């Protein structure tokens, strides 16, 4: 009894689905057929640029994604061919890299320190292929690998100074995803920027979440769990912080959520985003986005690929600094009017001092070049 009922129902739903599907096909399939003949897109160049992600994948909203987008932009700008392969686990690194070499890549871009060993092995085995690796450098250098690294502390220093200059509670905060040099370098610069402000102005702005001397602080433990970032941020708010800089990729969204809630509850709180201009890339938090510490990976990738394409490959590391705009402090966007003209000119002066070498920003994680 039940079974027959079910069978009827099943048949009925199948017929319904089929008709819906057929309608959809009718609606979508009515276009005219194009003329036969070659429509193959011509690539202007035989140059092939390739990229291998780490296990984060190209949609990690962090350095894999920025590098990938940089290469995709280069594909359009320079008319090169692009091959990409995503690693799901650390086990995929070596086969992926070997496959890229076998696919005749002129330059293979690898992302992150985890790929350091695999890149080194493949570079040694294929001395005629060129490689570039992001956020990692070799000591001693390897002749056919170009490191792309960033002195992020310089831009984070400006962000710290800005935070100290705009805080209303006298307390600012930061936290990281995992304690690795590419994360702590942000936190070092930020803390130093606040400290410098205190020295100059005789204030005593506190920084929660990172102790530069001890090289220890608050971390969420990965780049995935946004709720942990939210919790940490709420803790910071409870301790009186009003500006938070999360250095944790997508986990920064957890911080954004906590700050949005606090703002809705009437608190004057702000966030400093990292890697990209958060006002543009994380628009759901643009109302609290004071500024961002940007690492311009796309530009770096494009520069390195262009150099290699023009036959000017070198293994000298590309170091993103304030001087070459590899790292930057993003515009203030909607907070522009709330940052005083004095503070803005001080920041400009600081940038000039850092570029000119008058002011040294140091971090244990700074590139040693």
């Amino acid at each position, binding site marked *: 009894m039940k079974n027959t009922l079910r069978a009827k129902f099943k048949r009925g739903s199948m017929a319904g689905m089929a008709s819906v599907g057929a309608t959809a096909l009718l609606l979508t399939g009515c*276009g005219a057929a194009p003329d036969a003949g070659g429509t193959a897109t011509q690539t202007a160049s035989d140059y092939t640029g390739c990229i291998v992600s780490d296990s984060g994948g190209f949609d990690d909203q962090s350095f894999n994604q920025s590098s990938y987008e940089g290469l995709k932009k280069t594909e359009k700008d320079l008319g090169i061919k692009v091959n990409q392969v995503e690693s799901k686990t650390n086990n995929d690194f070596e086969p992926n890299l070997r496959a890229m070499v076998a696919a005749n890549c002129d330059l293979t871009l690898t992302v992150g320190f985890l790929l350091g060993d695999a890149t080194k092995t493949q570079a040694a085995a294929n001395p005629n292929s060129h490689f570039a690796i992001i956020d990692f450098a070799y000591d001693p250098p390897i002749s056919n690998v170009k490191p792309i690294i960033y002195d992020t502390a310089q831009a984070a220093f400006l962000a710290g100074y800005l935070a100290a200059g705009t805080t209303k509670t006298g307390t600012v905060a930061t936290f990281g995803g995992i304690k690795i040099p590419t994360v702590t370098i942000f936190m070092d610069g930020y803390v130093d920027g606040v400290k410098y402000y205190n020295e100059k102005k005789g204030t005593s702005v506190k920084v929660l979440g990172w102790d530069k001397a001890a090289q220890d602080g608050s971390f969420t433990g990965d780049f995935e769990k946004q709720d942990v970032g939210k919790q940490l941020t709420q803790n910071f708010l409870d301790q009186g912080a009003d500006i938070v800089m999360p250095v944790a990729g997508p986990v920064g969204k957890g911080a954004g959520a906590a700050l949005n809630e606090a703002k809705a509850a009437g608190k004057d709180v702000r966030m400093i985003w990292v890697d990209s201009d958060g006002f543009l890339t994380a628009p759901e938090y643009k109302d609290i986005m004071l500024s961002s510490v940007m690492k311009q990976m796309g530009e770096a990738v494009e520069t390195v690929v262009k150099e290699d394409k023009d036959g000017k490959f070198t293994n000298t590391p590309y170091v993103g600094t304030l001087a070459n705009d590899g790292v930057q402090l993003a515009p203030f966007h909607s907070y522009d009017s709330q940052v005083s003209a004095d503070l803005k000119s001080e920041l400009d002066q600081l940038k000039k001092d850092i570029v000119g070498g008058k002011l040294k920003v140091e971090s244990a994680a700074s590139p040693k070049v």
Partner: protein
Amino acid sequence: MPEERHPKHADQHAKPHRTTPAADETAAEVAVDTAGGAMSPSAVPASAQSGQLPGGPDTLVRKIFTGSGVVSVLAVLLALVLGGLLIAATDQRVSATAGYLFARPTDFLSAVWDAATRSYVALFQGSVFNPRGASLAVRFAPLMDTLTIATPLITAGLGVALAFRAGLFNIGAQGQIIIAGILAAWVGFALHLPLVLHLLLVLVAGIVGGALWGGLVGLLKARTGAHEVILTIMFNYIALYFLRYLLNTPAFQRPGESNPISPILDPTAIYPQIFGSQYRLHLGFVLAIAATILVWWLLNRSTVGFEFRAVGANPKAALTAGINVSRSTILVMAIAGALAGMSGVAQVAGTEKVLTDGVAATYGFDAITVALLGRSTPWGTFAAGLLFGAFRAGAVQMQIQTGTPIDIVLVVQSLIVLFIAAPPLVRAVFGLNPRRKKPAKAGKTPQAATTGGAA
């Protein structure tokens, strides 16, 4: 699982299994019949109704693990077909030609066929044989890669399969691989010993680490009655976060660096490559074959294995027959852990050569799938491990040659699991389901019958 009904006696008896089996059985039956006292007893005891008791020999989980071999093959086939359709659906040319489907349908159909076959050809070329290779050695390189990737899958899969045969659902291969990896890697980079001895010690450290981590679960289950699924899942977390902690300590980092990555293992601690340095295939694969033979022997020829199977089939009957169930639980989990430990060693001493927090990759969880597909038999697991190794190795070529996202391969793998976990579904698709047989036969598919009735 029948053990769950024991704990109410556990405080009176140090060993829950010491209660009189007969009395316990009756109590269990009553509990099932009355939903733990919530309902009045039915006229016909639950055990006499259609279908069988969840604790009986034909539990759903058991069905899943021991479905017929035909179903495994059909599940793979079905998953490949569906995967092909998915590949076609994500293909650009297919969506372009779909726009004028009615004007020239052949374009659309050939685009679909092209997209799917090109991807699978690339998958084959990336996992078995690459006809475009310059030399014979290069042409067979994909096969070697398949075997390399299959190595940890096979040993971890054996661990899961063995535990299942003893009635334990071992989700803990991941944690066991991690603990084994930590110990093996530490011995590999911190100690500097002569050739052979060093590698041997690395292997022993890994196996002992895995066995301890697995055996601990067995011990907790046997002594306290805690469920092994919960235990193993939690032990996975403990292992992972312990590993992350260690990688943040200088003892596990490279001198002068603070990235969470260990020093490279000494050359003396690395598995030798079987067919020379052009392939990644290492001695671990030979050990995986040996492990498969060992597990086969253990299960089918040894007394211990017979006890495992007896406990797995019916712990209470085994207890009545004089088998020490607690001892079997501890022992089987320790052996399962040791097998997973071999995967950990294959990772740090075979392919990775360093310790990172991704040392176990997803092998611990893939191992469950492998054991499922292999129907918990040693050689079935071996074959399933090879198949999954081939999927993984071929996925690289699939990405590069055709731009098919690697996630599609994972979708195909997941579909396989789905179909294996639902044999009636596969049989229905291929029209193999027995068409409303006599009621006596209904007991053959008790789960379908009971769930159907409930819906």
